[in-house]
C-alpha cells in the first residue's frame, strides 16, 4: 500500500539576509493510512515547517516528499488534505456555516451538497445549533472546532493540524483532545498533529515524532502501544508514563532545551 506521507532525506533551507537557516535536515519518515502522528519538539525544530512542506506551503530544497505517491503540489491540487492552523482563521464576515461552506464553494459543490456536508461536519465537532452565529460570538475552543469542521468538510483523508489547541486553556484542551480521538476513530482519517505538549502527544498518537532544533531534525520515532480506546485517565497509567518518559528523553537527547552558545 502506498504510504500517505513518505519523506526521504528531506531538507529545507531558508535563505535570509542573515545567511542560510537550515529548517529541516535529513528527515526520513513514513506515515501510513489511519496513523495519528504527533510532531513534538521545542520552537525552531521545524515541526511546523515539515507540516507546511507536506501541505505544499513550503518547498523542500533537498530530498523527496510524496503524498499518496504524488508530489505535494499535485496532492494539494487534488485537495488531498485539510489544514487546521494555529489560529482558527475564520473569516469574520461569514457565519459559522458559511465559513465551513468556504472550501465547498471553492471546490464547486452544489448548494445541496454544501448543506448536507455542513450539517454532517458540524455534528461531528458538536457545533450544531451555532450555524448562524458569527465567529466573534463563539468561544476560542468553539472557533477552533469550527475550523476543524471546515478542514473536514470536503472529506480529505489526511488532516494536518498545526498546534490547533495551543492557544486554549488546559480544560478546553483536554476536552477537545478526547473529542478529536473520537472523531479520528469515526472518520478513519490520517492525522498529522504538531504540538509542544508531551501529554497531548502521548495521549493522542499512534506514532510520536520527536524533533530537535538547529538544524531541525528527527531524533526519535516512538510507536505507541496504548489501546485505541483512551479515556482521559489513561494519562495516569504506567504505560502512558513510560512513553512520556521516552519522549522526554528524546527531547533531552536533542539538546533541545539548551541555549546555543
Amino acid at each position, binding site marked *: 500500500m502506498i504510504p500517505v506521507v513518505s519523506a526521504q532525506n528531506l531538507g529545507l533551507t531558508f535563505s535570509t539576509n542573515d545567511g542560510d537557516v537550515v529548517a529541516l535536515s535529513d528527515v526520513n519518515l513514513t506515515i501510513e493510512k489511519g496513523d495519528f502522528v504527533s510532531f513534538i519538539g521545542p520552537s525552531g525544530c521545524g515541526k511546523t515547517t515539515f507540516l507546511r512542506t507536506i501541505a505544499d506551503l513550503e518547498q523542500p530544497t533537498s530530498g523527496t516528499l510524496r503524498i499518496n505517491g504524488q508530489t505535494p503540489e499535485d496532492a494539494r*491540487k487534488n*485537495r488531498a488534505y485539510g489544514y487546521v492552523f494555529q489560529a482558527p482563521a475564520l473569516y469574520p464576515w461569514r457565519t459559522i456555516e458559511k465559513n465551513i461552506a468556504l472550501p465547498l464553494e471553492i471546490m464547486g459543490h452544489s448548494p445541496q451538497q454544501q448543506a448536507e456536508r455542513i450539517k454532517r461536519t458540524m455534528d461531528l465537532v458538536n457545533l450544531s445549533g451555532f450555524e448562524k452565529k458569527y465567529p466573534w460570538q463563539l468561544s476560542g475552543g468553539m472557533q477552533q472546532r469550527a475550523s476543524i469542521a471546515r478542514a473536514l468538510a470536503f472529506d480529505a483523508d489526511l488532516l494536518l493540524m498545526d498546534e490547533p489547541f495551543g492557544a486554549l486553556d488546559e480544560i478546553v484542551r483536554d476536552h477537545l483532545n478526547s473529542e478529536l480521538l473520537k472523531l479520528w476513530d469515526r472518520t478513519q482519517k490520517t492525522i498529522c498533529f504538531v504540538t509542544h505538549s508531551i501529554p497531548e502527544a502521548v495521549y493522542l498518537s499512534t506514532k510520536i515524532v520527536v524533533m530537535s532544533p538547529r538544524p531541525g531534525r528527527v531524533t526519535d520515532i516512538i510507536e505507541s502501544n496504548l489501546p485505541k480506546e483512551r479515556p482521559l485517565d489513561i494519562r495516569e497509567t504506567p504505560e502512558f508514563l513510560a512513553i512520556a518518559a521516552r519522549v522526554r528523553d528524546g527531547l533531552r537527547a536533542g539538546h533541545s532545551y539548551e541555549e546555543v552558545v
Partner: protein
Amino acid sequence: MSRVLPILTILIAIFIFWYAAAIWMNAPWQTILNERANLADVPFFEFAQQTWAQDKPILPVPHQVFSEIWNATMGLEFTSRRSLALHAWITLSATLLGFVLGTGLGVALAVAIVHNDAADRSLMPWIIASQTIPILAIAPMVVVGLGAIGLTGLVPKALISMYLSFFPVVVGMVKGLRSPEAIQLDLMRTYDANPWQVFWKLRWPAALPMLFASMKVGIAISLIGAVVAELSNAAGGGLGVRLLTGSYNGQTIQIWAALFLAAGLAAVLVAIVGAAEKWVNARNGVRA
C-alpha cells in the same frame, strides 16, 4: 437625548456668538447709515435689530441666510437662473458623477497595485504626487482645456471631483486589500483557490470597511472639487458660481446661503455613505 444635548448646547453657543459678532461687525456701516438718515441715539436693542437686517451686511445672521435659502429654493421656479435649488442640483450631479468615477478609478488602481509588483512600485509615487498639485491651479486648466475641445458642462467638473476623490479610495483600498492575514491566504492556497476566488471571497470582503471609510472622505472632497471647478466656468452655474457672483457683487447673504447649502449637501452625502456602510456591516456580521 444624551447625544442631542451636547450638540444643541454647542449650536446655541455658536448662534449667540454669531448674532453678537454680527452686531459688532455690522455696526460701523449701520452707524453711517443712521447718521445719513439723521437718526441719533438709537436704543441698543433697536440698533442690534438694524445690524441684523442689512442688505449687504459684512456678516449676515443665520435667519437672513436661512430665509435667503428658502426664498431662493422654494420661492423660485426650479428652472430660474437664480434658483438655488437648480445650482445645488448642478453641483450635486457633478459631485455624484465624479465620486462614482473616482471610487471606480481608486478601486481599479488599488487592485492593480495589490496584484502587480510593477504597478505597486511605479504607481504609488505618481498617485501621491497628483495630490500635491493645488487643485485651484489645475481645475481652470482642465475646465478651460476641455472647453477648448468642446467638452463643457458636467464632465469637466466631474473629472476634477474624480481627481480629488480617487486618492483616499486608492490609499484605503490598498491597505484593505492587503489586510488579510498570512494564514487566511495560506488557507486559500490549501484549497487550491484561483486568484479570482481569493479576491472575491477574501480580499474584497476584508477591504470593505476601508472602502466605506475612504468613500466618506471621497464624497466630501468630491463636492469641494465640483465647487472649485465651477469657479472656472461662471456660465455653467452651480454653487461655486453663486459663491463667485456673490463675492463680485458684495452679496454676502447669497455667499453664505450657497456655503450653507454646500455644507448641508456634504453632510447629507456623507450620511448616505454612512448608512450604506451600516447596512453592509450588518450583513457582514460586524459587531455593533
